[in-house]
């Protein structure tokens, strides 16, 4: 095995935080690809530029996604990374593992790839870094035989992911783990066979804390919420106060809707004015608990800045119940994809298409009524579209008003 001099990377073996260089070098001791990856990285650090080429089309039979081609410009100098493809494995919901399962993955990966992993990629997949084209079919066969499957890549439904949900969080409003497992099974075709204009990400968060960053990073953001009152355990409120919490300063005055008050003996909440932001509940979990109907708010369209600026997801469905078999949500997802398919240009995310075609076109296509919950504020300009049907409805309403003598605005 070639020995690389790595003065730049060696600097990153110092200091208290775990060193990725140390781990890469460890892998490099038993694997030539990992060894060359270390040498290749030192070269990048020395010249301050990367050498990976654009991905090529590589994959496994029957799948269009899951493997990302990667080659270096410096194949002669670093033969071990001449091919260095990425393999994405679909992670379990909530990233729960046993050490046995992880060892099994790493053993297979040591056999066929560089042994280097990325736990996890930003979409959620368990990412295996660096293998050759020849190794793809045998490694996939071996992962498959142990029950693992590839994740998404390219213009497909990307591997859905979720927060820890009821696995260990008291704030969740639905079973994020089950929903994501169920959607992954339901949409296997869309996950493995890229047929869309571009990527489509689905992320499920159990509450408005949104630990899985669904509002920022998912084309479809599913954010748990509830409809009932917040139940208050006044004895626990007193306990928080006794333990040093300034109830008025930290809770009441930080409530965004000012719907709470505390007089030193009892906390009260005007639930009709609460917007369920989760601040008070996360600060006083033992004292406050949501109640009533549970479900989620659906938002659409978030993405990173390419091409014309970042988007946060927009509310489309204020409330949906989420219980197996999730038929209403699945039907809606199919309608969303249909409209996107009909209207998108290549490499256009759904948020961008909605910006081009208008929210009305999108909402009408998926059968959702306009509601004030969907907007921060109404439009500011007077440049509106009126269809003949819109005008007919306004006129019919005015006819009705004449009959009843009562305005209906």
């Amino acid at each position, binding site marked *: 095995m070639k020995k690389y001099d790595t003065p730049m*990377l060696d*600097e*990153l073996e110092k*200091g*208290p*935080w775990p*060193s*990725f260089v140390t781990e*890469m070098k460890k892998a490099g001791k038993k694997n030539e690809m990992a060894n060359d*990856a270390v040498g290749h*990285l030192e070269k990048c*650090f020395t*010249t*301050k*530029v*990367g050498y*990976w080429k*654009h*991905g090529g089309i590589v994959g496994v039979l029957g799948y269009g996604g899951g493997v990302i081609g*990667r080659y270096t410009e410096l194949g002669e100098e670093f033969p071990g990374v001449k091919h*260095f493809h*990425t393999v994405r494995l679909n992670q379990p919901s*909530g*990233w*729960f*593992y*046993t*050490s*046995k399962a*992880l060892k099994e993955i790493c053993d297979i990966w040591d056999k066929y790839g560089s042994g280097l992993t*990325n*736990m*996890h990629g*930003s979409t959620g997949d368990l990412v295996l*870094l660096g293998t050759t084209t020849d190794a793809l079919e045998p490694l996939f066969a071996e992962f498959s035989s142990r029950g693992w499957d590839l994740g998404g890549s390219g213009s497909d439904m990307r591997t859905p992911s979720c927060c820890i949900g009821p696995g260990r969080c008291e704030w969740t409003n639905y079973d994020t783990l089950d929903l994501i497992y169920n959607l992954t099974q339901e949409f296997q075709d869309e996950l493995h066979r890229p047929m869309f204009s571009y990527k489509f990400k689905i992320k499920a968060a159990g509450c408005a*804390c*949104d*630990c899985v*960053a669904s*509002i*920022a*990073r998912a084309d479809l953001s599913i*954010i748990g919420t509830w409809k009932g009152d917040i139940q208050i355990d006044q004895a626990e409120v007193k306990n928080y106060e006794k333990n040093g919490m300034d109830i008025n300063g930290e809770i009441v005055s*930080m409530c*965004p809707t000012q719907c709470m008050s505390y007089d030193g003996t009892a906390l009260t909440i005007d639930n009709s004015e609460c917007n369920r*932001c*989760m*601040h008070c509940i*996360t*600060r006083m979990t033992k004292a406050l608990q949501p109640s009533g109907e549970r479900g989620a708010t659906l938002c659409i369209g978030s993405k*990173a*800045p*390419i*091409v*014309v*600026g*970042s988007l*946060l997801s927009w509310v489309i469905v204020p409330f949906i119940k989420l219980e197996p078999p999730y038929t209403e949500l699945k039907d809606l997802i199919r309608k969303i994809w249909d409209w996107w398919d009909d209207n998108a240009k*290549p*490499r256009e995310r759904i948020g961008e298409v909605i910006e081009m075609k208008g929210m009305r076109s999108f909402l009408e296509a998926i059968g959702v009524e306009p509601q004030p919950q969907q907007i921060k504020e109404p439009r500011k300009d007077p440049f509106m579209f009126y269809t003949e049907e819109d005008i007919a409805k306004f006129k019919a309403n005015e006819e009705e008003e004449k009959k009843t003598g009562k305005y209906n605005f």
Partner: protein
Amino acid sequence: MADKHCDGYLRFTTRNNVEFMVDSADKVQALVDDCNAHGMMPVGGTGAGVTNIVHTQGWVHCHSAATDASGLVKSMMDELMDYFTTKRLPSKLRLAVACCVNMCGAVHCSDIALVAVHTKVPTIAHDNFKNMCELPTVIASCPTRAISPDPAKKSVKINDAKCMYCGNCFTVCPPISIKDPERDGIAIVVGGKVGSLRSAPKFSKLVIPYISNDPPRWPKVVAAVKHIVEVYASHARKHERVGEWIERIGWERFFKLTDINFTFQSIDDFTFMRDTLRTASTFKW
């Protein structure tokens, strides 16, 4: 560690921390002691502190990287270690690194984040264009409409005055090259969040437009991040995220408190200009 203390069970968090789970409070201390004894398994990242930094692949494995993400993260976390193991910040602080403007990490909605940027108009290997690229795709890839056909060369030309170096044309067309070792660098954005607690989710906003790539440890970038963390730590109210603190005091006050030079790059001249310019005379000196 999981075999010894947790019957083999473990998980990863959305910030890529490893989480060991035990079924009894009695088992916690032994696990923590063992992690600390290991030397490279720091215990922390919960509550009002810094947790693991979400980042992209960088020079380790990505074709469009303008910097190395792992190296930046290691360098920052070595300096911010105390904020990982303690809970003495006003609120949680989410850091992220993206090695190009594709932003595979949630950089656009983090408390403090780094994004690697290009600063030069790409060059084009015209001879390869017709063999490797689709003309309409390349033209459509440009957010500022800076690309037009160059029929004589069977290629495209780029209007220098319109190009803002996003690199999207490079992504769809390999003969277009945008990497530049002396000009690629790091921008710092602050004030984003994804949770809806107290205030709505927010984008991160640009405060430092450019620091040169300086591997292996990017000392100026690390110093800038640490400085912003420290100013936040000493000025924000309990529970306030970075973005909430800045919105309360005002951006003009943020630039004053941090002593960061305000530059033209912080004034939006892209898609969000209308929303971001000030329309009132009520600001602070």
